[in-house]
């Protein structure tokens, strides 16, 4: 990319705060906190324990729920993708639950699960679970039969075929699911924290609204955005590291 393009792109990003500044200066969008107010609030938040607890709590919730979702969805998806009978017995029930937005489960989880933390984590887990599951199934089904045949003809047992062929071959699809899943984990985490209360950036943002600390709402949004971008980058990194074979170009 040449330097002129880079400049334009940087300008594009800079235009966001500038337009915001202009809008608040000229009173377009009354009620919207100004960039200065938000910056001020941000600095203030950085000195508050509450803010850091919320940030760390949300991060831990997302990462652990996501990890659990991946750990459950990937093996389950591979099994469903490869074994018709297993799929018939499990998938219809899962399909029935899938269209229910995870956040709609919150009353259920608060009543049924023994700790508030588990409720929020379950909602977050659900957000990540289905995209990973569906992509894994698709990935496992999409494995070209020639690869597993080649493995069998080279003497691989069905477990070996699963381990060395089905799984790596499904990885790119699984990874695509993980990227979507990470996004949805955040969406649902934020919703759950807003609804269930307690701590976390979602709650922070919503309670900032409740308490009338409007600049803090935007502090929350920015922090959530930054962490969301960082965790997506993390998943991408993980993928690049695991699927390095897909990148190499012909000599």
């Amino acid at each position, binding site marked *: 990319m040449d330097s002129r393009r880079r400049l334009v792109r940087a300008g594009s990003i800079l235009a966001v705060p500038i337009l915001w500044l202009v809008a608040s200066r000229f009173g377009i969008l*009354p*009620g919207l906190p100004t960039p200065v107010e938000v910056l001020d609030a941000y600095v203030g938040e950085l000195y*508050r*324990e*509450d803010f*850091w*607890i919320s940030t*760390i*709590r949300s991060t*831990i919730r997302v990462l652990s729920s996501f990890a659990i979702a991946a750990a459950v969805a990937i093996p389950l998806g591979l099994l469903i993708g490869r074994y018709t009978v297993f799929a018939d017995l499990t998938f219809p029930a899962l399909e029935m639950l899938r269209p229910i937005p995870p956040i709609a489960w919150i*009353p259920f989880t*608060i*009543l*049924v*699960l*023994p*700790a*508030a*933390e*588990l409720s929020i984590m379950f909602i977050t887990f659900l957000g990540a679970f289905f995209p990973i599951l569906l992509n894994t199934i698709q990935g496992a089904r999409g494995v070209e039969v020639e690869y597993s045949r080649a493995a069998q003809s080279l003497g691989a047992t069905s477990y070996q075929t699963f381990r060395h062929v089905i799984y790596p071959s499904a990885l790119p699809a699984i990874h695509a699911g993980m990227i979507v899943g990470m996004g949805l984990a955040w969406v649902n985490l934020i919703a759950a924290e807003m609804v*269930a*209360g*307690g*701590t976390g950036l979602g*709650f922070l943002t*919503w*309670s900032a*609204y*409740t*308490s*009338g*600390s409007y600049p*803090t709402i935007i502090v929350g949004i920015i922090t959530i955005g930054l962490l969301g971008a960082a965790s997506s980058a993390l998943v991408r990194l993980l993928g690049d590291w695991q699927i390095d074979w897909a990148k190499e170009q012909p000599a």
Partner: protein
Amino acid sequence: TESEIFGGAFAGFDEQSFIVGYQPFYTESWSALVIRHGELAEKHLPEEYSVASWEVALQGAVIGNKMISEQNDIGYTGDMPTITAIANDETPIDMVAIAGFSEGQQCNLCFVPADSDIEEAQDLDGREIGVTTGTCTHRFLLEAIQEEGIDVDISDQGMQTVITNIREGNLSAGAGWEPSPSRSVIQESAAEYLFTGADYDMNDTAGLLMLDSLVENHPEAAKGWLKAELEAKHIMATDPERTIDLIQQEGQLRDYERETLYGTLYENIDVNPDVERMLFYTDYEAVDEAEQLMKNEAPEFLHENQGVISGMPPDERYRTEPLQAAIDELEDEVDWDPLREAER
């Protein structure tokens, strides 16, 4: 801090450390803030008991339901969530005290934009009023409308949305509970009070809830907590400055000016200048109006009028033994009258 990040999360499993559900944006449960920041629980609980975490909620119902699923052990909730919680037949929950009481000056408030031409309740006829439905304020508003014989358009909105829309002039009037209206009236001069519960003889109150298992199996802890509650009420009733100092330590309220916090607890509303803002009662059996409200009016409304509870809460869910025990014990220890604090 570490325990707040990790420890508190799953503490619900430990019978001797409690998770307390409280509401910073609800003045009638502010004794919880005084206990928290005055470290009164630590002072009065027997040694083997502790507070695992203080869980903020923005709605009483969240606390009530967390108690039903035994995630919260102690909760501060408004009258309606209190009744809903003790009427449920899943997990026995007791109402052991009232957290706050007022003759309609905390929860039963109707306000209008500062520059409004509305001067009395009758002017609301045909107007749009914002209120959060299903709350005690909603009940108050319905009753007021009925008594006035007017017809209004009720718009169901969250408390803060009502405040925002009043400020922006999108609503003719709003109804809600403190401290949000005070912030708008005192801190921003964006609204004015129009009428209150006192005009319709409607009191408002909040309950202090405990899991029945806590009361039964850990009576010393229940008693300890109520001692803390009594001391908190004593401080609130006798030392407003210290009270506000403690409340100001609540991070959630950082954008509330001291004046606002003071006003919402101690300054009478100009439309009813003779009615006390807040009465620091604890024992609902000692105060007729409170007992009426918690044992009859609110449950009847929820049962007969709304059909949300399948029956009246059983008598044994109203428990004052721990409070009595706390009073008895404190009498020997302190130079103020815990019985008075319990009553008033």
